[in-house]
């Protein structure tokens, strides 16, 4: 508020967002968890080598939290003596890369098609929306199961299916926002100044649509993680020996009576990551919306203006 926040970064927009982040305790925790998972999945896991699949038959089925065995057995070990902690880290790699790739690709493709459909209208719009309706009206999991049965359960196919399942969502949202923006005065102004359709779409409409899409994509990372883990749990997702969190829960299921830690920890990892993505997305929605931003800035403008912002 009044005291300026020390600036670790030069970018004033970034600084403003950091300041807003510090106002929301839950968002700070969520971002911390997300960064932790990201770093584990993208930096630490590739450096671990084969630690996650290394078997040690003398260390079978160790319960968690026994400090005398060191980091290896901190979260327990499975039937083959593999470390649950190391497997969690390795699982983060697949879960993060699948969910992130699918979310980014689906958001990019869906937004491009959606803006185009909303701006061009006509037959492009009709066909795009109809295909989107067909895909959306059907459970993504069933669709993925069906096509993973026909194709192979390779990581690339899983990502492709998740993208196909999620693209319609972005098409719908981007189109709706474009339809609303298309009639606004600044778009008319750009058009009368002689801007091409391409320029109008990328320079005028896309910046308006983008915050909504970003929020949706952040939320979607969690949803995709849940979907992927569900597929892996059913045995149609990531195949062993590759490690995934959903697959770990499925493996642990057989020993749920005796070795609860094999199921508890991977599931907890999925839950916490998905929850963090949701909380972060909620924060992002408020932070990116000028009409709601005051909630995070701590300065409340006239209540009337805020109300009108909510109403619109």
């Amino acid at each position, binding site marked *: 508020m009044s005291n300026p926040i020390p600036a670790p970064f030069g970018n004033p927009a970034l600084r403003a967002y950091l300041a807003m982040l510090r106002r929301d305790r839950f968002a700070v925790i969520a971002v911390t968890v997300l960064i932790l998972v990201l770093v584990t999945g993208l930096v630490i896991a590739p450096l671990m080598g084969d630690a996650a699949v290394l078997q040690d038959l003398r260390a079978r089925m160790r319960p968690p939290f026994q400090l005398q065995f060191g980091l290896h057995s901190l979260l327990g070990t499975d039937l083959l003596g593999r470390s649950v902690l190391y497997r969690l880290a390795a699982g983060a790699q697949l879960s993060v890369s699948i969910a992130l790739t699918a979310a980014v690709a689906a958001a990019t493709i869906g937004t491009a098609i959606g803006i185009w459909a909303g701006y061009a209208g006509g037959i492009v719009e009709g066909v795009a929306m109809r295909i989107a309706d067909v895909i*959306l009206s*059907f459970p993504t999991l069933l669709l993925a199961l*069906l096509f993973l049965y026909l194709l192979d359960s390779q990581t690339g196919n899983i990502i492709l299916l998740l993208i196909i399942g999620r693209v319609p969502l972005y098409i719908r949202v981007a189109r709706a926002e474009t339809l609303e923006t298309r009639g606004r005065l600044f778009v008319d102004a750009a058009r009368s100044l002689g801007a091409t359709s391409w320029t109008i779409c990328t320079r005028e409409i896309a910046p308006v649509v983008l915050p909504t899409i970003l929020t949706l994509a952040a939320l979607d990372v969690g949803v995709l993680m849940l979907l992927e883990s*569900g597929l892996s749990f059913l045995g149609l997702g990531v195949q062993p020996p590759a490690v995934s969190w959903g697959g770990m829960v499925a493996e642990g299921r057989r020993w749920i009576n005796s070795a609860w830690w094999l199921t508890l920890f991977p599931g907890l990892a999925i839950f916490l990551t998905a929850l963090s993505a949701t909380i972060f997305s909620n924060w992002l929605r408020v932070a990116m919306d000028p009409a709601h931003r005051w909630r995070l800035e701590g300065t409340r403008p006239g209540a009337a203006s805020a109300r009108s912002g909510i109403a619109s």
Partner: protein
Amino acid sequence: MASLILKRLAESFLSLICLVCAVFFAARLTGEPGKLYLPLTATDEVVDAFNRQHGFDQPIWKQFLDFVVGLTRLDFGESLRRQQPALSAALEAYPATLSLVAVTMVVALLISTLLGCLAAFRPGSIFDRLSTGLAVSAASFPDFWLALMGVLVFSVGLHWLPTSGTGTWLHWVLPVTVLMMRPLGSLVQVVRGSMIDVLSSAYMAAARGRGIPVWRQLFIHALRNASLPALTVLGIQAAAFLNGAVIVETIFGWPGIGRLMITAIFDRDFPVVQATVVVTAVSIFLLNLVVDVLYGVIDPRIRL
């Protein structure tokens, strides 16, 4: 209203045709159907004989024609593992899923209405924050894990509930709870949001002015208008319910269509897979239709 339903029916039918075509061509394009239908260990001679018997050696347009003709007679072919037509296997399993999803939807609607109304009554209160927190986390639970944890605590640990199967009402508790979780999250937030809008309207101020008891204000006056968005979300969530049903049925041994589909997938029983997909798709479309009709029942303004 009638024209709306007709339009919806036409749209659904079109979507259904797209889906069926996609299933057909995906099955043919991803390799030899003979290999798809037969066990992985089948020899070439067996595959050839199978292809001849089922017409897979015909040109693809003729196969498609036969497939469509079969569909119009509701014939998906014989199940390869069960001695019965694929469609009757799917329809036999259907009531179990339908009752599970229906009960879950009703319970979810009741709980979310109660939580949402109470949260909206005093926005920012402890109860509001608790229920919002609950709603956010409910949507983030991996359902298969929640199911296993439920079994671990309530069946293995406390011996209160059975681990799987059907029979008594106790068998319903865990499946319904797990299946409810994810849709519940968005439902609570939607009810809360629309309730806050309704509570600030003039007719609610009038109700307060007339001294009507609080519970009556909330659950009789406000709820009817506030329930419309919840109903829409329930329709949208129909797909999510069926997503969850696959997992819940697999874990709790519920003899429904989701489990049938998974079993059929692992048995490589493609006619049954096809039949379950189409039956599921039809039921989603019907469910959305029911939601549309309910919409008209609750809000006379839509009954045009």
